[in-house]
């Protein structure tokens, strides 16, 4: 019985070999290019490895990295706090309040972060006498504080738009349903609207964090020694190109790590939406 079954079994024909089409050749050529570029990169860094350089500049890169992370983290937090009233003002039906909030958001989203940093760092210095009178000069004298101030205002504008879009994306029926149950407006907002809005806002918030980390590199130009600032200083002393390559590796690692962490968070928080 089984013998008969064996003899009648038909061999599955082998899969036809994939033809070397033009796209396939181009694709593998490009992959080979990246592989060679990566190999060249590693060989360059291996040959350029200089223990004196690493011992001298390694700790400085580390302190620069800490400056970047602290600066971005604090401005994101302060920006998040500031973005709430701005977003509420953007949602308000009062044309004056709405107009002011709109102008604020439009200004900070429409101009380069670098120009904003210059405006704060160099521009506010012009009013040192007035600032001394109200006791704020100590704050604005320091480049780090100026960067923090500019970043906070900038990210608050972006985060306000994220928040506003997310709140508006929650269907009106959610408000009406809560009203029908006699739930107070604030409670409705906090416990019904906001949780649904934050799920929508999750991805844009992640993008904003990454944008801020990348954008923070410009503080090097207003003499804050963040990762980019330390890199520039190291380059201007050694004229060794590997200083920039190390910075690129570090930035890439931070951004990729954050992106993956954010993907995990999103997967976890939206697991009830999976079908």
């Amino acid at each position, binding site marked *: 019985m089984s013998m008969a079954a064996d003899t009648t079994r038909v061999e599955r024909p082998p899969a036809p070999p994939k033809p070397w089409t033009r796209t396939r050749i181009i694709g593998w050529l490009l992959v080979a290019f990246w592989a060679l570029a990566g190999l060249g990169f590693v060989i360059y860094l291996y040959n350029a490895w200089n223990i004196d350089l690493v011992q001298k500049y390694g700790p400085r890169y580390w302190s620069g990295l800490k400056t970047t992370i602290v600066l971005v983290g604090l401005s994101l937090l302060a920006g998040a706090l500031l973005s709430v009233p701005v977003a509420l003002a953007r949602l308000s039906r009062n044309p004056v309040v709405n107009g002011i909030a709109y102008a604020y958001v439009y200004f900070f989203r429409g101009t380069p972060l670098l120009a904003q940093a210059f*405006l704060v760092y160099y521009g506010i210095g012009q009013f040192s006498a007035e600032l001394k009178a109200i006791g704020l000069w100590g704050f604005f004298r320091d480049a780090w504080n100026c960067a923090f101030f500019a970043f906070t205002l900038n990210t608050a504008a972006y985060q306000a738009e994220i928040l506003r879009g997310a709140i508006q994306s929650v269907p009106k029926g959610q408000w009406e349903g809560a009203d029908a149950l006699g739930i107070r407006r604030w409670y409705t907002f906090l416990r019904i609207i906001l949780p649904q809005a934050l799920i929508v806002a999750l991805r844009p918030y992640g993008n904003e964090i990454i944008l801020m980390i990348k954008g923070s590199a410009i503080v090097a130009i207003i003499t804050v020694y963040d990762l980019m600032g330390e890199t520039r200083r190291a380059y201007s002393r050694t004229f060794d190109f590997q200083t920039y390559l190390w910075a690129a590796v570090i*930035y890439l690692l931070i951004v990729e790590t954050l992106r993956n962490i954010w993907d995990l968070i999103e997967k976890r928080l939206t697991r009830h939406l999976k079908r």
Partner: protein
Amino acid sequence: MDKVAILLSWGDQGWADEIASGVVVTVALALATLPFGMLLGFFIALAKQSREPSLRLAANIYTTIFRGLPELLTLFLVYFGVQIGLTQALKAIGFSEGIEVNSFAAGMFALGVVFSSYASEVFLSAFRGIPQGQYEGGFAVGLSSGQTMRLVVLPQLIRIALPGLANLWLVLLKDTALVSVVGLSDILRQTGIAARVSKEAFLFYGIACLLYLVLAMISSIGISAIERRAARGNAR
């Protein structure tokens, strides 16, 4: 107030002519980067939605790198990297003079590369918005795959991708400010010089911000005109 009027006048005493030339440079850089970045971005999007895994891998490596690096760092890598590379190449063939890379070209290349990696995402999601039937229809009437792409898919693709590309254009306009750091005489550099010479930093950097805002507003008007034109086939 008179002092401000003199500072902002046209000619030897004022800075208006210098700043105006900066505006021209900023707009020229953004306009020069746009076609380069869009074309590159389109091909990367094609590679990303290809059925060939190696092509997808190569395109994904590209976008991961250039979306992960700060724009300023990309610019420095291009500017100093090309400078060092060219100097060493020239040394190898006997020239010993160092050379200076044109900051406009370096900026155009660096911003174009960044633009293309973001544009590829926009094009990719636009590709997903085009039903398979459009390709099948194109093949059914006897068009080659190139013709189908050019005559059937591309016109629809651009319409879908337009809002995303418009956003990227506004980002590009702002990113050109970074090139002032490597010495391009754009808005920010010219107003910076004016600020240093006249000691009126707040005024001049404020003007720089306002000029960027004006450019953004003009762009928005232009973009909505293009969008209306692109949507005229949808009008009923």
